[in-house]
């Protein structure tokens, strides 16, 4: 796969507010890339710079090796699906989809054919003459997709396109989007704050916070091997604790020693203060005394597929562990908790003030 888009050292401020602090992103051809982060992290601004709606204060945008930093949006070979769809309310569904084609001066019979093809792709065949106001939110979303797709862009930019839909429809559309991406064979750049969307659809996830890239990698890498506490906390449920490396492959958390698989060879020297991530589903529940530490169940919720429980450990630091288990344990009972060494994710603590700032609560 060849590199299609490169954002190089992008900085952007609105007045005093620095939204993007030196962002560099590389996107390969036909990749599904998701920019993931809480609101205000700079993900939408990044997308708008790509679309040509904002100019970066410094840095370059490269497309197919060419510098397009100052190329206006109407001359870029990419199309955007806007968050609120931005469908033209005074036009029919068909005219909306045909907009980009008519701009190019395509003859009407070709336009008609293309519009038909576009609407068919998003399962809206025969809706050409409907008014936009007659379409439901999910249908409007599809019209917006069709309007972008018919122009055959090399890249489709999607700004939280599923944000306004209800849960069921959102899940359906996730499958649709992946199908569309494969059928069209183009690059998708997707912006969302929803970690589930990011994990299910993407080839690559770029986690952002406070105008910086926190981590980029496959969904599996982001989930299983978060590089810092922010990513760990933002993606999925988690127990994040402070720890100290005792020696290679042993970390002490709240006075209890846990065997792990990290050591000096990957940068965690004995004596180093670290952040430790343990996913709630990785905490195995054993009879009291049979785990690494004992804890008392303090609350229990039935989530549907599993039970979610909080357990208070009788250790230093008074930490309440979040557990997920298919079995139910009574509140008040004491259990033993065990974690396999490979399920303990050791992370570097933020070193500088700058890095500290990324650990905002979400």
């Amino acid at each position, binding site marked *: 796969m060849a590199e299609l888009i490169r954002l190089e050292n992008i900085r952007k401020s609105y007045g005093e507010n620095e939204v993007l602090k030196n962002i560099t992103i590389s996107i390969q051809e036909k990749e599904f890339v998701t920019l993931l982060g809480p609101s205000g992290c700079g993900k939408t601004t990044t997308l708008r710079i790509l*679309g*040509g*709606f904002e100019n970066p204060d410094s840095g370059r945008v490269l497309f197919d090796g060419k510098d397009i930093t100052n190329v*206006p*949006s*109407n*001359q870029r070979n990419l*199309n*955007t699906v*806007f*968050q*609120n769809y*931005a*469908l*033209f*309310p*005074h036009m029919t569904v068909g005219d909306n989809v045909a*907009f*980009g084609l008519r*701009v*190019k001066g395509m003859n009407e019979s070709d336009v008609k054919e293309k519009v038909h093809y576009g609407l068919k792709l998003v399962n809206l065949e025969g809706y050409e003459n409907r008014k936009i106001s007659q379409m439901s939110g999910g249908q409007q979303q599809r019209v917006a997709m069709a*309007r*972008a797709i018919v*122009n055959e862009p090399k890249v489709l930019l999607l700004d939280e396109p599923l944000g306004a839909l209800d849960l069921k429809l959102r899940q359906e559309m996730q499958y649709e989007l992946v199908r569309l991406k494969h059928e069209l064979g183009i690059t998708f750049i997707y912006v969302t704050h929803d970690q589930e969307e990011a994990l299910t659809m993407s080839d690559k996830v770029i986690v952002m916070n406070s105008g910086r890239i926190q981590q980029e990698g496959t969904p599996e890498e982001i989930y299983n091997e978060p590089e810092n506490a922010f990513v760990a906390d933002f993606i999925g449920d988690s127990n994040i604790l402070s720890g100290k490396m005792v020696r290679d492959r042993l970390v002490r958390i709240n006075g209890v020693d846990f065997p792990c698989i990290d050591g000096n060879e990957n940068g965690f020297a004995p004596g180093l203060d670290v952040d430790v991530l343990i996913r709630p589903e990785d905490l195995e529940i054993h009879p009291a005394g049979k785990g690494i530490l004992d804890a008392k169940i303090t609350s229990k919720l039935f989530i549907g597929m599993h039970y979610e429980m909080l357990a208070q450990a009788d250790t230093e630091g008074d930490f309440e562990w979040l557990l997920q288990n298919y079995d139910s344990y009574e509140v008040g009972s004491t259990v033993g908790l065990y974690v396999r060494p490979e399920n303990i994710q050791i992370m570097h603590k933020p070193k500088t003030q700058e890095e500290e700032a990324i650990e905002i609560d979400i």
Partner: protein
Amino acid sequence: MTFSKKWSAPFIVFVIAGTVIPILSIAYYGFTSRDGGITLDNITAMFSANHMQALGLSLLLALVSTLVCLIAAFPMAMVLRDSKFGKQGFTIFVLILPMWMNFLLRTMAWQVLLERAGVINGILQALGLPRQEMMNTPGAVVLGMVYDFLPFMILPIYNAVMKIDSHLIEAAYDLGAGKAYVYRKVILPLCVPGIVSGITMVFIPALTTFVISNMLGGGKVNLIGNIIEQEFTVNSNWYLGSGLSLVMMVFIIISMVLLEKFDKTGEGTFI
């Protein structure tokens, strides 16, 4: 009883006293003659040469001033749209400030400016330029109409322009459109309700005004409004005045129906 039913009584009284009775009495006078007989003479009088001439001039001046207002208001609304939030409010405030002044006073101010010995001629003279005859010309009347009615064009268009979601404009650019195309296919069509509303609010008072033409036309610019006014005041001929008024009403209704054809959303017009 619903709220609307409970409180509708005063408005029904108002509509009867303020609309139904006056229109019926105008219709009565319009279709009768001085001796009490029923006649169409007051209606057909509109087609006499001098009345048709006045109507033609009225139409022309009203059209010209509506067009001038439109050409002035639309770019202004677009400029305001792009300016900062605080500035918008202030600019609109300044634009409608003259509306708080008395209508006669505002028009009289133009007399002072345009007169033979007025402010503008004073400046021209000081610069060594020849005096201009500006008063009592159709141009002066159009100027007065534009000055008095411009806010009625700006406000509805400004409202329509401000309502346009900027994402729509971005989407049009995103789909490859150039500036002119975006204006033609997106911005202008979305402003149609405001434009129709503005045209209605400028064209109708401009078509029927007699005060502006009296003060800035000095009797030399005879509009249909002046003729109707003179029938009621100078000639005390309520019958003819009412008849001509009825014809004007029909005329206005027709032009509003025509206008409504452009406004598919029905937001801008009142019928």
